[in-house]
């Protein structure tokens, strides 16, 4: 039965349903239990599952990330919450050196079925230490799956897939979307990784994005429609695995491509996609792939500077116009 719930409730439901089914699943992180989650994602979970399965940690990201990885090596299915992915940087050694490489390093003996999840991206004037978009940075590392949900429906299905997945998954939520409402079925379901979702069909230009900026793409597509530019918007869902086939298929139809990526432009998801599209669609493209990224500077605090730095619908509209020679 679909009903309208918040993004945060969809995340909670995915975790709770998995925990009911599988005693190996537990949730650990800062303020997840007694405080009911710094952003209320885990509200009520301590009451239902008790303190052995919903576990508060000290501010020790490197410690509890590593603890989770060790537990996963033993066969448990940890969900580790980072209050913000910005704080995952102090756990970089564990999440980048150990989680993605354990299976390989042990010759297939020890897998690492773990989910790291939390807020990613600008939360609104949090300054440069707290506004990290880690997807491009972490996508460089082989062995991780990186997922960015865009709606409550997607969030619930993708998080379930993440928890059931036998490999480490980085699940990147956005503080700015936790209150967003949408239709979500009560029963458990899975949404696959590596399968892009066509959010809006169109014939004139392909716009590809992940996570929160997908909503800016939709907004831009609506504006452009009024000018007679009919955009196709793809939500990639996961950056690793990347559904390049779906992107290629769309670009072969539209002949134009704009990639929208909230991380910095250098060595990023958008530069990777541009490179792959240039290779696969060399003869189909009527212009080079255009990219919309955050500006190549640390995130500023001031409201006007931050707004200017981040991708938004206006910048996407401009990029599409420029890409399709209608600037």
């Amino acid at each position, binding site marked *: 039965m679909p009903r309208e719930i918040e993004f945060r409730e969809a995340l909670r439901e995915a975790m709770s349903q998995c925990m009911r089914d599988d005693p190996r699943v537990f949730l650990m992180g800062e303020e997840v239990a007694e405080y009911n989650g710094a952003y209320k994602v885990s509200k009520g979970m301590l009451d239902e599952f008790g303190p052995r399965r919903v576990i508060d940690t000290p501010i020790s990201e490197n410690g509890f990330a590593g603890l989770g990885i060790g537990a996963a090596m033993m066969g448990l299915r940890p969900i580790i919450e980072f209050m913000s992915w910005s704080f995952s940087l102090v756990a970089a050694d564990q999440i980048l050196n150990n989680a993605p490489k354990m299976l390989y390093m042990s010759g297939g003996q020890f897998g690492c079925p773990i989910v790291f999840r939390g807020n990613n991206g600008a939360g609104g004037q949090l*300054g440069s230490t*707290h506004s990290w978009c880690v997807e491009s940075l972490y996508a460089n590392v082989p062995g991780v799956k990186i997922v960015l949900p865009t709606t409550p429906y997607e969030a619930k299905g993708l998080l379930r897939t993440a928890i059931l997945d036998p490999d480490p998954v980085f699940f990147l939520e956005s503080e700015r979307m936790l209150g967003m409402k949408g239709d979500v079925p009560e029963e458990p379901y899975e949404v696959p990784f590596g399968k892009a979702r066509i959010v809006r069909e169109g014939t004139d230009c392909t716009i590809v994005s992940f996570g929160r900026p997908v909503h800016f793409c939709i907004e831009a597509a609506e504006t452009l429609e009024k000018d007679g530019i009919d955009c196709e918007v793809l939500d990639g869902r996961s950056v690793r695995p990347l559904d390049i086939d779906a992107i290629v298929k769309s670009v072969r139809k539209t002949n134009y491509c704009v990639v929208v990526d909230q991380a910095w432009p250098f060595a990023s998801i958008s530069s990777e996609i541009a490179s792959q599209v240039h290779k696969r669609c060399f003869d189909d493209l009527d212009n080079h792939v255009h990219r919309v990224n955050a500006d*190549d500077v640390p995130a*500023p605090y001031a409201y006007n500077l931050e707004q200017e730095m981040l991708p938004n619908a206006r910048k996407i509209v401009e990029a599409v116009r420029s890409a399709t020679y209608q600037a």
Partner: protein
Amino acid sequence: MTTATQPQAEENLAAKLPPDTLQQWLRDMLLIREFEVRTMQAYQDRKIGGFCHVYIGQEAVAVGCTAAVEHKDPIITAYRDHGHALARGMDPRYAMAEMYGKIGGCAKGKGGSMHLFDKPNNMFGGHGIVGAQCPLGTGLAFATKYEDEVMKGGTNTRVTLCFLGDGALNQGAFHEAMNLAGILDLPIIFICENNGYSMGTAISRGTTMGHNITSKAAGYGMESAIIDGMDIFTVYNGMKPLVDRCRDTSRPIFVDMRTYRYKGHSMSDPRKYRTKEEEQQYESNDVIDKLANWLMQEGHLTEDAYDKLVKEIRKEVRASMKWADNSPEPDIKELYTDVFVEEWGPFLGTSPPQIVKDAEGAGNDEDDDETREDDDD
């Protein structure tokens, strides 16, 4: 929850200071309190964005500790940093404008509440990542000692104060910094502002030996002390001898500074993890009242003078808000300044904020002028 235990009565050094010094402390604490009350209002009015953590209740720590060191001694702290910045002498206009995201802010609006920096006053920041300032503090102490001993061939002259919250005790960065400070004999005092909670986590739930955190220092063979941070006399009397010893011996020290934050962790904290009685117990024994009462008893302050002081400070803070309001938003070009020192590609080099220009204009000649060449844009 730790209740602040009264440590051994030390020699009352503070009471022997000239009354105007203690009056200045009162002024500084009142300024921080008023500044924070106004900060909370400005946050409600959406003049301030992002995360914002006020210092109300802990004023005696920043003021007492900075009083125990010299202006040339570097200080560094975490994101609850307004009090340290003001105690160190930052003009409240620059602090307020920073939080308003205006060009007049100490970092031209680019850092925000959690990242206040004041180079002319040797305040090396507010730092947003829990524990991150501890290795940095170690580096400041390394540098002062290096300059004094290696480059100038003398002996160490400066002490670094590195403030941290009790939550930072659980970060690896803190432990690595403690070990390095010990191994390298660095003149640094780690002051743990132990307010009993990191967000909603009482110290006993987050930290082993939470009832006696000086045991952490023992593990590093480091001298330590427990100081009552709810009274500026105990802060100063406790800190002054430690600072003197640290300067003389160039050995690190760890302080368990028992304090309390009257307000929530940040602007959105319902404080369900502690009782109203506990809060009232601290608030009814307020740090500022204590000093004001003492000054009155000793005949160094009249009710009238106190009222006048309060009014004066209210005016000063209100003026800082007005100044911040009137300060323009940073030009969009500021996105591309201060990324690199030199102009390069889209990057526009650096330009000093008002706070630095003013200090230079005032002929504020610090003895570390040679480290300032990046201000000459």
